[in-house]
């Protein structure tokens, strides 16, 4: 299953699941819950960290953490 790390710049996905004990509670507090959307805004030079829009929260996380969040990629290229 694709993860947040597989998104390309500007692409969006809906969170499916993640391993609960690996993910920090903080990330959940910011809205990282199944069903919410994540958009990849920018990838830093050297491909890490990732700058994402997590259902309205703009945050940067490292690739290693992004790989733990599984999602379903939404193709909304036509709406944008």
């Amino acid at each position, binding site marked *: 299953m694709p993860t947040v790390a597989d998104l390309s710049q500007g692409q969006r996905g809906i969170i499916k699941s993640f391993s*609960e*004990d690996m993910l*920090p*509670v*903080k*990330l*959940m*507090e*910011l*809205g990282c*819950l199944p069903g919410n959307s994540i958009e990849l*805004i*920018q990838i*830093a*030079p*050297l*491909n*890490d*960290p990732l*700058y994402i829009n997590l*259902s*309205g*929260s*703009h*945050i*940067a*996380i*490292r690739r*290693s*953490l992004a790989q733990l969040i599984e999602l379903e990629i939404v193709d909304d290229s036509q709406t944008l």
Partner: protein
Amino acid sequence: MSETIKVALVGNPNTGKTSVFNQLTGLKQKVGNYPGITVEKKEGICKLPKGKKAHILDLPGTYSLNTTSLDESVVVELLLNKKDKDYPDVAVVISDVENLKRNLLLFTQIKDLKIPTVLVINMSDRMSRKGISLDLDLMEQKLDTKIALVSTRKNQGVERIKELIADHKNLSTLPNLNASRIAPEYFDRLQKAFPKEDLYKLWLVITQDVNFMPIEKKRIQDATSFATKSKVELKKLQHKETALRYQFINNTLRETYKVDLQAARGLRSSFDKILTHRIFGYVIFLAILLTIFQAIFDWSTYPMDFIDEQFANAGEWIKNTLPPGVFTDLLAEGILAGIGGIVIFIPQIAFLFLFISLLEESGYMSRVVFLMDRLMRPFGLSGKSVVPLISGTACAIPAVMATRTIDNWKERLITILVTPFTTCSARLPVYLILIALVIPKGRILGLSYQALTLMLLYLLGFGMAILSAMVLNKILKIKSKSLFMVEMPTYRLPLMKNVALTVLEKTKSFVFGAGKIIMAISIVLWFLGSNGHSEEFKNAETIVTQRIEEKGLSDYSKNYIQNNISTYVRSTKLSVVDQTNAVGLKSLQDSIQLMTTELREKARAQEIASYKLEHSYIGYMGKAIEPLVKPLGYDWKIGIAVLTSFAAREVFVGTLATIYSVGSDEEETIKNRMAAELDPSGKNPLFNLPTGISLMLFYAFAMQCMSTLAIVKRETNSWKWPLLQLVFMSTFAYLVALTAYQILK
């Protein structure tokens, strides 16, 4: 009768909590620390309608009551402890209209503690731009609270907050939701075990240290005996609780919070495209740093020269006005000289804090973290280490505290250990005066040599920090979870009021904090410098007079007289013919005669003074350490200054000012006094290039700050790390300074 209502401001980071605090309290605020820990405590007084008053406490920013850091646990501990003297009568939760959803998570948690709670929705000025519309009445009903819609930028809605605080008795104290639903059985047992306690509070106490790093928290004693669940299970329950809260919040917002995406326009994305660009991003960052250094060096010289002169004048005034005596000497030579040594650096320190607070207020700092993270990682640091390293250029103390945002313990420890290498504002006085003395004035490509030297010194400190981080990363064997998360707030025009208050407050605490030490050291130094027990000291006058009679004045004094007279002659219009404004040959010779006698007398007094100083208490102390500092190119006076600098670096200039002014009649600026000092041979200036460079390098690397050592002890909870810093950094500094001097001399 005026009652004081106790108010606690709570909220997520980046919601403008501090702006609200500043609006409510104005200048009536006090910044201190929570007892025993280094979390900053801001409090202030606010006048309310109907003659009431409120005591406002600005709590550290937090995303929730599930604590992961010391800052956050301050919030939780206060809200859980009814006996605390600051326990609020009313909690004011500050939220940001754009991020209302996640801000409400904290709100519902506080509400569930049954504390009367007001919700402030801040940044309402952005609503139209973002296409947001709110149904406040319905929201108040659903959240069972009172809401104030506020824009601190436009100064709207602050009165409403005051009214709501004054009216706090009418607020509901019912919880928003019942958290025990996440594990009914577990909570049932909990209630049976502690029938008198509030369930949600118990839950918070039990989960308090689930997410803590090992070092940051002493365990809570009571109630933990009931922690029959493992950490993993508790964490799962926290996830469940969070999900439950979001369910409630989503339901509430569905009907009350509308976003019209068509109307939404954002500056963030277009700014981010440039500022986090893989090339332009770094170019801009470097340009910003360059501007800062240019400002600190070039722009601040004008106010500094002015201050320097004022202090020289003040000293002269005191000496001329007050009756001569010990007290006047102490005032003019001890205290005033020492204080002058710190006040003069206010312009530069203010500039530095101005830039740092502008970078933070505008939201740019987070972008720097984003840009730098991957680059810092090979050195065992994180992108978040950049913030401490940058704010370390102001002061290592807040910088070490700022490492708290780094969630990975190893990265955090390394950051703490290397931060003192960055050039803090206390080094600045030392650098500036030495650069002015030993580096020539020319320019290259529009940048002055002096500014470039300063920049080089900053880079040197930064480079050393990175280098030692790399070494530490190899040596330290610490396993810790790697977490990294940075919020990227929207770009905002910094609020001038906030920036001004930060600059004012930080500069004030720097001056007074350092001022106290400097004052004490100045008095002690003055005493040690103007007293002595040896025969030489007591009979200085006869000994020196005798010496002058036998051998004449010293070479230095002869030069001094010669120079003065030739300057005088050159400046006088000479004419053999009688003429207004001109001086005849005869009268010139007379006046030269007179002047020579006067200058000889002055030189004699000067020689007595320096002889006395050499044989005073401090003279003996200085001579004792001279063998140690001589290979670095320092005389015993500099040695004393370096030694006192171990209390705090900024003492250096003040110390030299005090030592040099003891017994001197001429009130000179500090710089001129230092420039006039001669090396032991009595021919060349003491502060020449090799000595200057050696001193600068010593100050660049040595760990000379007791306050930093204390803070590192506190943050790492052990003496091991600060002692390591002290020994390693200072030895290294000595060796580098030694090598540099031996090569250059």
